[in-house]
Each structure stands twice: as C-alpha cells, then as structure tokens.
C-alpha cells in the first residue's frame, strides 16, 4: 500500500509541477529590447521625445537613402527639376525612373511605379511615414505629463510645422491627397483623397498652431538656447511664418501672404540678404531653416549630386546638368550665372556642361561648411513682391523684386504694371530659386503657365507631346490597390 501511495503522490507532484510552471506568466514576461523604447515611454522623457522629431530631420538629410525626398539623386530638387525645364538628363543614364521623370512619362502600374517615391518612398519611407511620426508625436506629446513644459511645447510646434511642411509638398506634387491626422491604421487605410483646399486649410491651421508653439530663437539638440553661434537646423516660429506666407501665396490669399512675409523680412536681427557666395553656407543669415548633413565627412548631398566631377556627368552619381532653357533665361550680367557664383561648368571632351553651384563643398574630409537650405529670406521677398503686385502695390512689388535683383548684380526692374511685374517675378523666381525643392515646377503649375512652357520643353527632352495631366505625379500603385477609395490622377 505504501508503494501505491508513493506512486500516486509522485504523479500528482509531477502534474502539479508541470502545469504550475506553465501557468506562471512570469516565465514568459519580456521587457522591450534594450536598444528600443516604445510609444508608452518615448514621450515621457525629454531626450527620447526630442530624438523622435530629430529623426525626421536626420532622415531628410540622408541622401544615402533612396527616396529620402529632399536631397540627393532621389531628392525633389533633382526629380522636379527633371520634370520641369531646369535639368537635362545625361544621355548615358539608363535608369528608367529618371528617364520617366525627365520625359514627363511617369507611370504607375503593377510592375513600374515611377513618380510615387515622395508619397510612399522607395526602399525607405516616404512623406506619409514622416507624417506618421508627426501624428504619433502630436498624440504622444499631447498626453505626456512628464516632459519639461518648454520642451513639450517646442516639440508639439515642430511636429505640427513638419506635418504642414510635408502636406505642402504632397499637395503640390500629387494634387488631392488623403489627409491623415492620426496614427490609427484603421482610419488611415481607408481615407479617400481630400480636396486640395482642405489640405491647405489644414496646413494653415497647423502653421498657425506652430507659430504659437515654436520658439522664436534657434534651439540646440536639447532644446536650449545656443551659447555660441546658433545652428538654424530646427524649425522656429519664423520658419512657420515663412511657410505660411508661401502657403497663402499659393492659395491666392495675397493679403495674408504679404502680412506673413513682412514679419520675417522685418526680423532683421536674424535675417538679411547676404552676398551670393554666402547664401548657402551653414548658419547663413539668409537661412530661415536649414538641415544639417548627417553623413561622415560630407557636406550636402545636393553638392555631391549636382557638382560635376572632371569626368563630367555619369549614369548614376551625377546624372544631370543644367538645361539650355534655364541657362538661356538669365539676363546678361546676372551674377548668379557669372563667375562661378551659383552656376559652374566643366568641359569634357569639347562639350561643356553647366551645373548648379549653389552648394560648393564636396570634400570628403575636412569640416562641413554648408547646410541644406529649406527656407530662406530671398523667397520671402519674392513672395511679398508677388502678393503686392497682385494687390496692385506696384512700387512695393518693385522694391521687393529689386532687393533680389540687386544682390544678383542686376539693375532695378523695368516692369511697372501688374502683368509685367508678375511675369518679372516669375522669371526672377526661376533664376533665383532653381533646383531648390521644386520651386520652379510648382510655380509653373500654380501660375498656369505650365502647358505653355512644357508644351515646348517636353518634346525637346524626347518625351513626346506634353499633356496637361503630366503636371501631377501618379498616386502609388500599391496604395490604390490596397485602398479602393483612392482614385488615380487622370492620365495614368
């Protein structure tokens, strides 16, 4: 009998042991990996909260990543420059994607998807990923109670500013786009395209909020005032005002555009028109907002992409040079074109290639001297000139336009009525803002001059006939196939 009891006891012990252990939750509790933080705690701590917004700027600066969108061979400056009349694609380039941009022959189908990089990214996230980070930050920061109030306020301002900034580029490249204002995938995955007016309304709301939240001084990486020369690499109140001025201009609200640009122009303590060769230097007084390069011993990716080496353009690293249309549009004596100020050239084998030389530093070693320009003062003058011209303030428009012309070594404008002034301003924008984040491409579209201009340029580029639907880039094919509410732009 003893034996029997013993056996039963053993069995019961084993059973109890086995199931006891397995129902113990502690055994399978895990912590987040030490290399990560999570949504629950990332916004509880100043340093980690700051690093989330910082990641956006770092990403935007990294031309090593295809489709980072704002610089380098897949940046908007190059792609929209190809689409417009700014850049010529080197004949040796066999990249179908660049060819499609260049010939205004973008396409979105199951096998080829050229023209959607900015939206969905290519090999790395696109603008909607950045917008997700902005939305996640806004949600996290709003809930957070443990951050230093000033940090929380600045970051909330940065998140709203960046969201507006990204939507501005989306709406101008694609037209109507889905307006995602939350991180909830259930909501975002079924969004239809919102009308462009609605997007602009949201941009204005965000920028007004950002103006109130953002610091009026430039802040360091831990959101404190700089003790030495301020780096202008985080958005400030002034950046929000400058972008709002541009937004009002694009939406035809000239009164507000003038008002906003005036605020920036009047802040002479921070901003002034510096000489041509100093405009794109880091911490330049012309800079309202810049982005710091993040690759070891490299200056801006734009410099690497646009400045041609002694061997001339090449099929991948330096695929473009300036177009005859742009070169031909400079007035005689324009210092921007002369003396290697903003344009330089190289002669290879008897052929001369001109290239953008706004950024001049390509050294691999040595100190970084140039930052990528995102918003600058000259544009504010041109915004105000145009806003004033639209309001028939001829002399006001002339003086703003001349502020830009005179720096370029030109004489004062001779235009003296609204029409000729607007034409003069459009031309001035072409030669002042070339290869700067799609300014030319957007100008052609918003002034409805695109059909007239591209009607001649596209066939010259070998792209066949220009059709007006080419002015909008295609919605990513993958998004259309995943969200039945999304409708493709016509012409694709």
């Amino acid at each position, binding site marked *: 009998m003893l034996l029997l009891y013993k*056996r*039963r006891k*053993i*069995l*019961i012990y*084993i059973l109890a*042991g*086995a*199931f006891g*252990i*397995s*129902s*113990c939750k502690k*055994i*399978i*509790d895990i912590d*987040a*990996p030490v290399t*990560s*933080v*999570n*949504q629950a705690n*990332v916004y509880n701590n100043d340093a980690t909260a700051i*690093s*989330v917004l910082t*990641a956006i700027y*770092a*990403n935007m*600066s*990294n031309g090593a990543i295809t489709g980072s969108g704002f610089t380098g061979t897949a940046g908007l400056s190059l792609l929209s420059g190809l689409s417009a009349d700014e850049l010529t694609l080197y*004949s040796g380039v066999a990249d179908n994607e660049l060819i499609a941009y260049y010939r205004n022959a973008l396409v979105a*189908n199951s*096998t*080829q998807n050229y023209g959607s990089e900015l939206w969905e990214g290519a090999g790395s*996230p696109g603008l*909607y990923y950045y917008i*997700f980070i902005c939305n*996640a930050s806004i949600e996290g920061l709003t809930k957070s109670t443990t951050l230093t109030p000033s940090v929380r306020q600045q970051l909330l301002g940065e998140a709203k500013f960046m969201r507006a900034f990204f939507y501005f580029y989306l709406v101008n490249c694609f037209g109507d786009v889905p307006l*995602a204002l939350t*991180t909830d*995938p259930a909501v*975002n*995955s079924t*969004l239809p395209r919102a009308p462009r007016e609605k997007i602009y309304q949201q941009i204005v709301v965000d920028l007004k909020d950002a103006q109130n939240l953002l610091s009026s001084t430039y802040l360091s990486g*831990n959101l404190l005032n700089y003790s030495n020369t301020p780096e202008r690499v985080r958005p400030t109140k002034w950046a929000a005002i400058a972008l709002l001025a541009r937004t009002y201009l694009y939406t035809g609200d000239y009164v507000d555009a003038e008002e906003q640009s005036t605020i920036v122009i009047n802040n002479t303590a921070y901003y002034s028109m510096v000489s041509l060769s100093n405009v794109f230097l880091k911490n330049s007084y012309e800079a309202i907002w810049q982005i*710091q390069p993040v*690759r*070891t*011993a490299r200056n801006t990716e734009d410099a*690497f992409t646009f400045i041609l*080496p*002694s*061997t*001339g353009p*090449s099929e*991948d690293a330096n695929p473009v040079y300036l177009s005859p249309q742009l070169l031909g549009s400079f007035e005689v004596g324009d210092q921007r074109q002369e003396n290697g100020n903003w344009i330089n050239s190289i002669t290879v084998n008897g052929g001369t290639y001109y290239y953008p030389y706004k950024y001049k530093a390509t050294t*691999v070693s040595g100190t970084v001297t140039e930052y990528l320009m995102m918003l600058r003062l000259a544009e504010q003058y041109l915004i105000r000139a145009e806003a004033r011209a639209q309001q028939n303030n001829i002399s006001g428009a002339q003086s703003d336009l001349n502020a830009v012309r005179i720096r370029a070594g030109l004489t004062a404008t001779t235009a003296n009525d609204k029409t000729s002034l607007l034409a003069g301003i459009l031309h001035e924008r072409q030669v002042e803002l070339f290869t700067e984040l799609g300014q030319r491409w957007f100008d052609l579209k918003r002034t409805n001059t695109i059909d007239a201009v591209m009607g001649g340029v596209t066939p010259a580029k*070998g792209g066949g006939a220009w059709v007006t639907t080419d002015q909008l880039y295609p919605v990513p094919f993958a998004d259309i*196939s995943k969200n*039945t509410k999304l409708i493709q732009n016509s012409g694709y």
Partner: protein
Amino acid sequence: MQFKASGNPMPLRQRLLTKTLLVMNLTVILSLVVCLQVSANAYSQKTITLSQKNVPLETVFKEIKKQTGYTFFCKYEWLQQARKVDIDVRNASLDQVLELCFKDQPLTYAIVNTTIMVRLREGRDVNVAEPSQLIDIKGKVTNDKGEPLSGASVEIKNSKRGTFTDANGMFELKQVDANAMLLVSFTGYAVREITVKRNTFIPVSLALNTSSLDETVVIAYGTTTQRLSTGNVSTVKAADIAKQPVNNLLLALQGRVPGLLITQPSGLAGSSIKVRIQGQNSIMNGNDPLYVIDGVPVVSQLPMTGIDAVLGSPGPNYNGNGNPLNYINPSDIESVDILKDADATAIYGSRAANGAILITTKKGKTGPMHFDLNMQKGWGQVPRKLNMLNTRQYLDMRYEAFRNDGITLTSPFASANDLKVWDTTRYTDWQKKLIGGTANYANISTSISGGTSTMQYLVGGTYHKETTVFPFPSDFADEKGTVHFNLNSSSANQKFRMQFSGSYMYDKNQLPQTDLTQAALLLEPDAPVLYNPDGSINWGPNATGTSTFSSNPMINVYTKYRNSTSNLISNFIAGYKILPGLDISTSVGYNNMQTNDFRPNPLIAIRPELRSTSQRYADYGDRNLSSWIIEPQAKYTKNISGGKLDLLIGTTILDIKTNTGYLRGAGHLSDEMLEDIHTAATITTFYTFRSDYKYDAAFARLNYNWQDKYIIDLNARRDGSSRFGDANRFHNFGSVGGAWLFYNEGFIRKNFHFLSFGKLKGSYGTTGSDQIGDYNFMSLYNLYGGATVPYQGINSLIPAGLPNPHLQWEETRKLLLGIDLGLLQNRVLLSATYVQNRSSNQLLSYSLPSVTGFSGQLLNFPATIENKDWEFSVNTINIHSRDFNWTSSVNVTIPKNKLIAFPNLSTSAYSNQLVIGQPISVIKAVHLLGVDTATGSYKYESKTDPLNPTYPDDYTKLVNIDPKYYGGFQNSIGYMGFEFDFLFQFVKQLGYNDALFWNGNRYPGNFFRGFSNQPVAVLDRWQKPGDNASIKQFSTSPDYYVIGSDYRYSDASYIRLKNVAISWEFPAKWISKSHFRNCRITAQGQNLLTITKYKGLDPENQSMTSLPPLRVWTMGIQVGL
C-alpha cells in the same frame, strides 16, 4: 478477453491507478476499459433467467456472470467468430443455459470451480490448454549477436501483465500460467511470440526487423514504429542521407517524403532553402516547420545580420537569410523524421502548425571500438546553359530597336555605350566565363564508436570544403569543420541513465557579394574584357574617362563576403526509473550560434571617377543566437486490460536570445586595412536588433494500445509565448489520433490471405504558430542608424512599425485519414493518406496603404486557408535473396491549397491579390492575346484598351503556380558487394519563365548597363506588318505590361535524376588480412539529369539571378577498422 484474472494482484492496484487517472481527468481510458471490468463478488444465486434475441455471446456471458458470479475465460477473437444466440429461459440451471449457448458454436467449454473455460472445438487451438499450473519464470532477451537487450517488453499475451528486461536483458515474471504465451518486443526488432511450455528459464533471441514497418520512428518525446504509429510521420535514414553529396541535410530529403516539398532557391553553398510541409498555411510568412535536433528546437529562420543578403538567394523562391541547418553536419545525422499531422505535432503545440522535422544525431552502439573513415572528392557544375544572343544578334536587336523607336544613334538621348563605346566585334560567352567553372567538393569524416551494455560512446569529426563555379580564387569557398560526440550511460540496474550529446561546427563561407548568375546571363555579349593587360579591373572608360562598366563582376574579388559561423548544439538527458513503468527524466538543451560576417567595400571596387568623392568602408556584422531549453518529463507505462498504456507528461521552458546587427567602419587609410574595424576613422551602428523570446508549456500524451489492434493517442498542450500581448499569451492545443490495425482481427486474417498488414488511421487536432518575430505587440522606437553624424549631436529614434497589442495565436486544424497495407509478407507496403489542414485566425502583416505610414500591420485576420493533400507511397521488395536485393519506392503528393474564407475581401487591401476558392499564391494576370500583326504591339484582353490594360479590371486571368503534384521514385539494387541506388524527383507545376525575356523592366532592345542581353527566344519578334510573332517589336523603351501578363508563366514541371549512388564493398576475404573491418568505394551524383520543357536555367529555382542547384559528382572511399 478475460473476465477474471484469477490469482492476480493487479485489480486492486488498478483501481487505485484509475483514481489517479481520474484526478487527471482522463476519463477516456475508462470508457475503454469499460464494461469488462467486473468485481469478483460471489453470488449465491445459481439459477438464471434470460430472454434475449440475436445477441452476441459476450452479452449472454455478462448476464450469466451477473446472475451467477461465474466468470468466463476466453480469447476475444473466438467470441467474434461465434454466432449470435437467441435465448429465452426462466430459472434455468447454469448447465442448461450453457448448453443452449454453445449449441452449434465453434466453441466448447468446461467448468473449473467458478470459472467457465471456453475453448475451440476439435482442438483448433493448441496454445491454450486448461490453466493447469502457475509457475515463476525468468528469461533473457538478446539480439541476433547474443548481446543483451535492455528495456525490451515482455508481456503475457492476452493478459494485462508484463515487464521489461533489465540491463542484462533479464526479466522475471511470477505466477504465470505454465502454458502462457509471451510476447517479446523491442523497438527495431521483430516481435516474437514464445510459449512458456512449463519452462522456468526462457531465452529469447530477437531478430532485427527487415520490414520497414518496424523500423524506429522518432516522434515528439519518444519513438514508435510505422506499424503502430497513429500519425503521419515519414523517416529518412542515415543511409539515404549518406548517398547524397549535399551540404545541407534538407537537400537530402528532396523527393523522398510525401507531403514535403523542398526547393533550393540557390546553388550557392550555405544559402537559404524553402521547406513546406503540406503546403502554405499562412498568407504571410511563418510557413517554416519546426526543427528539433536531439530534442533541442532551433530557429526556423536565421535573423539577418544586415549584410548577408547574398545568402538570401533572390528569386521567386526567396526564403529568408540562410538556413539554420547549414550549420549541422549531414553525416552526423542518424535519422530525420518528418511529422506532419496533428497527432504527431500537437504536442509541439504552437510551433508545429507547419509540421516538425526531428533530427536525431548518431549515437554510440554497444560493441567493440569501431573506427570509420569516409573520404569523398567531387566536382560541381552548373548543369545547363541558356541560349543567349551572341554579339551579332545582340547588336542587330539594338539597332532594330533604335530604328523602331525612330531614334538616331547620334541623338543625345540614344544612350548606347554598348554600341558607341564598346568594341562591337567582341563576343564573350559570359555564362562560360562567369558560371562555367567547376566547384571542388571535398569531404572527410571519421568516427570512433563503441561501448558496453552500460556505456556507449561516439566521437566524430568532419571536414568539408566546397568552392564556387565562379572564376574566383579557391578561397571563395564554404569550409566546415565539425565535431560530434555522444555519450550514453546507465547504471547497472538500468534505473538511472544519462545521455550527453553535442555537436560543434565552424563554418567559414566566402562568397562574392553578388551572385554572378545574373551577370552571366545578362551582360552584353560585346561588353569589354574584365581585366586590363596589367591585371587591374577594366572599367571600360569612354573618351572622357567615365566608366562604361558600371559594375565589373570581377570587383567581387575585392568585395568578398565572408561569413564565419560557429554553432554548438548540446543536449543532456538524465532519467531515473522511480518505479516499474514510471520513468522521470529531464532534458536540457543549449544552442549557441555565433556569426561574424564581413563585407568590404574598398576604393578599388569603385569606378575610378567616383573615387575622389567616395570613402572606402566595410561592414562588420555579427549575430549571436543563444537558446536553452529545459524539459522535465515523466513517462508511465502500464499494461491495463490487455492493452498497453503509455502516459507522458512534461513541461518546456525555452528562452532564445538574439542579438544581431552590423557596424560600418569608414575612412580606413588603405583598402588593405578594411579587415580591421579598429583602423576605421568612424564607426557607426547601421543596424541593431536584440530580442528575447520566451516560451513555456505543459504537455501530456496518452497512448493506449489494445492488443496491437486498437490504438488511441491523445495529446494536449498549453503554451505561452512572449510574442503576444498580455491578454493572449496562453493557448491550448490538442489532438486525438487513432489507429485500427485491422489485419490483427481474426476475420480479416482469415478472409484476406494476401494481406500481411493493414491499418486504418485518423487524427484530428489543433496546432498553432507564433512565427511572427518578437515584440510585435509593442510599439517600438528603434535607433535610427542612417545618420553617421548625429543630428545636432544627438541620436534619433524612429518608430519601428504599427504595434498590435491584441495579437493572438494562429491556429491550424489538421485532419488526417490514412490506410496502410502490407501485402505478400510485407514485401509490398502501400500507404494512402488524405490530409485536410485549415488555418484560421491568420497572423498576417495586413497590407496597408503607405498613407498609414507603413506597408502593413501584423494582425490576426479571420481568413481561413485550407490545404488538402493526397499522399501516396508504395514500397516494394522486388527481389530479396542472399546475394541479390532490389527494393523500390514511389511517393506522390497531390496538394491543393485554397483560400476558404476572407471576410470582406473585396474591400480589403487583398482584394486584388487573393481570390476565394483559389490558392493563396494565385497570381492575377492580364491575358496576353499576342502580338498585333499590324502594329507589332502586344495586345491584351482588356475591356477598354487592348494596348493599355487597366489594373485591376483587366487582370482577371488566374495563374496558379503551386505544384499540381510532386514526388519521387527510388530504387536500390544490391548484388554481392555492389549497391546501386537512384532517385528521381518530379514536380508538375507552372512557374516563372523569365527566360522568355528578362524579368525586370528590360525589354528586348532596351539597354541597361550590364543587364541587357536577351535569350534567343526574343528573335521571334515582330518586324513588319503581317508578321506573326510571339515577341513584340524591339524597343529601347521599357514595356510596362507584358511582365504582368499570363505570358510570364509557363510549364516548369520537371523530372530530375536527383541522385545516383554506386558503391562496392570489398569482399571480406580480400581485406581480412589487412585488419580492416570493411572497405567500400563509392561514386555519387546529385542533380545529374533534368527532363523539362522549362526555358530557363533551372525549373526548381526559376531564377535569372540565382545560381541553379549544381550537378555534383563525387568519388569516395569508406574504411572501417
């Protein structure tokens, strides 16, 4: 059947056990033991009142017993032969009733005390005599060599009693009927029946089993045989693995196992392998089986280091970044068992939804010390070349394309280095140049083994080297060194035993960073020479000095990828037999895999004109996988009611830590210094991933085998995994399996003489999957590794994905029905199995539009996928004689994968990808009508525009690339010392046939640096109106639609002579003087011949970018001392 076991002390103990079992809530057993259990209370009443019509004799016996207390002693089979009886008596005597019952029966009876002995009439059974006497017996069980077998089962037939042999093979049974029959069995040996015949000492010699039915089959936490298995388990033995010169044992399984489809996506040594057991259960990933090596589970997919892309074998059969079994030595493997159905896998619960592959390493065996040496040398080549355009044809294609497009060559838009810069008179057969070489194969393995009855050992070592077919120095090779050991020991009384095994492999694999296959196929035939006369890389500079060779394949010499991996797998098992039949043990396993990989990018590999603005750098990756597992378990074996009960309970605690990533060092002073990260000017973390996976479970299995006729197998498991959120961490899995060995029924034996074995089996149960990666329920923010100079001096964090705290287990319900038949003394074994697996609550990375910020989110989706398989196999012994043996086996699997349900599919992100009722791999294509004879353009079946079909409306043609059927056919022929083996593998399928035109955007006529050549098939193109061609007119522009059309898919079926192995054993008299135990020479071949209509390099990997599986020949010698 025995109504009363007189003089047997068991019933009391049995009732106690029954109570214990009740505690465990295993009532099922009780219902089996049932009605025949009656207590031995005496009844005074001797008269019987009965009124029953057409009832079995058994029923009457029970009634008689109830009324009189008399018990019956009888063989169950006899009762089944008895005819039914009509009886109507009132207060009749026992004699009268019995008279009526046995009237016209084949049986008769005798009354002994209160027992009624039933037996056959006319002495038809000589074995059962009257229970004249009870004696004590002893015996010894040995193998055919006279060595004792410990742990053999000795049962008294038709009773509940039995025992096991001790360390010396001895057994002892008390109070046994002097005429009883003993049933002696031992796994791997033929069962023997021996009559006691009043002997008190019974020597039993067991012969090794010749029938594959009785070969050992390893199952989860135990072993069984094909004969007794209730599940769907297939076994591949060391002998078959040894015949194949492969570096991953999975490749030795191709074509051998029904229900298992193994695809080799690349011929590069050490690359990934795609393994599917009974199809794809999950829409997303996580379709890999569970691998268990000596009880230690290993990860199914290696986490990437970030720079090991070359091992991921691009192409349609891509499957992860390398296979963990690359780091296991195939020659250390004793057997591989593939567990497919719920019954076999439910005990692995969550991890075995896709089946399990159990790998058992070689163990030492009792006997004198053996030394074995096996040396092999071999050669591997790409088996097939593709017909590509030569220079003349290529140039004509290009000129024609320019003409068709109306572009003059001198135009600045005519990008044509191939025509303008290169020497158009050159022709190079790039396939011959780049992948036409011979890979050298060498394998040396040795082992020493032996042991006594209480201690066995095995120590082995292997060196393996395989070079590539590329034109690179011989250090581009996969070199492996392995040590394997095993130690088994037990105490003299066999109560305590322990087993310690381990294997360690060091693998150094040096490969080009990119597989040269794509360059070999697509490099333009007039591309420049690879090297300058001075031996430097030729970049083909044009007049301005710009390189026209964008990536000379030879830069791989300088950018060699090196992967060094060491893998240790060890396992320790200690067991103790507490009581007869009750055995407790604990298994402790440890696995540590360390990888360091290195990918240099020296300046010399960069185009000269870019060097001034480039930096040399190198990537240094590492991966550290360490896992431990502890599995305490208890086994209980007992004979109950004439059957054998096996009960297993246990628990698992598992922890896998992963730590992987890579650093980039840049700015070294010279290319030579790249090897050393410490000489880098800057070091940046590019990728880092750490994870911890924890898992624990409790499991139980109950197996009851009643007289080798009815077997029932129950499994249950409760699992917890750290991959899920708090609410859903635990889940229960279970299965029920049963088998009816109908051949053991008398009436079958009697009526079907051609049969020698017959079994019906079935199982149903659930298994799960948590193959989703760690931490998906958390919303992680990871370090952003792209910024090598921190922005404003601070590190940045980016969200890793959309979290889902509600993640749950994916569940697969598996149903199996099968029949196994043995004919002609089991010389023919037939097996047919029907399988229906349904996976639901799919864990999938639900595809999302990029507006959400990400391309998908992991979630459980109520989609249901069904896999129906028919599996057939036939094994035959065609000739079996002393000198000549010939066996064959064929297996065929007919799989069918189907999406059963997907709520709201039409509005989901999958609406254009999946179709209800179709396989989940279905491809929606636009139907190509052909080339318009008038315009030379492709025409598609379109509702709107036949030249520009619209997506998705016109993409209505469904293409199914799942195999229709697959299988293998093997023959082994032995004559004297010769052995000849061959295996054919066959697959019937549609596949990607990119060899009709290259698989990217490169349309014939289009030029894209280094990827522009085309197969000769493109010559059938449209040239002028009226041409009836299969390819549209050449163009320098890409084509947008043809790649999405059904034209891309064609027959990719094949029959492949997978393996031939020939060996010859030196006759014993030749070697007897040399003290060799044996000596054998071998010749083996792998992938020798492929019969296919497929147009590309290989119908198995279907890739234009990955090296096809190589054809390998080896010669070898095996020596035993």
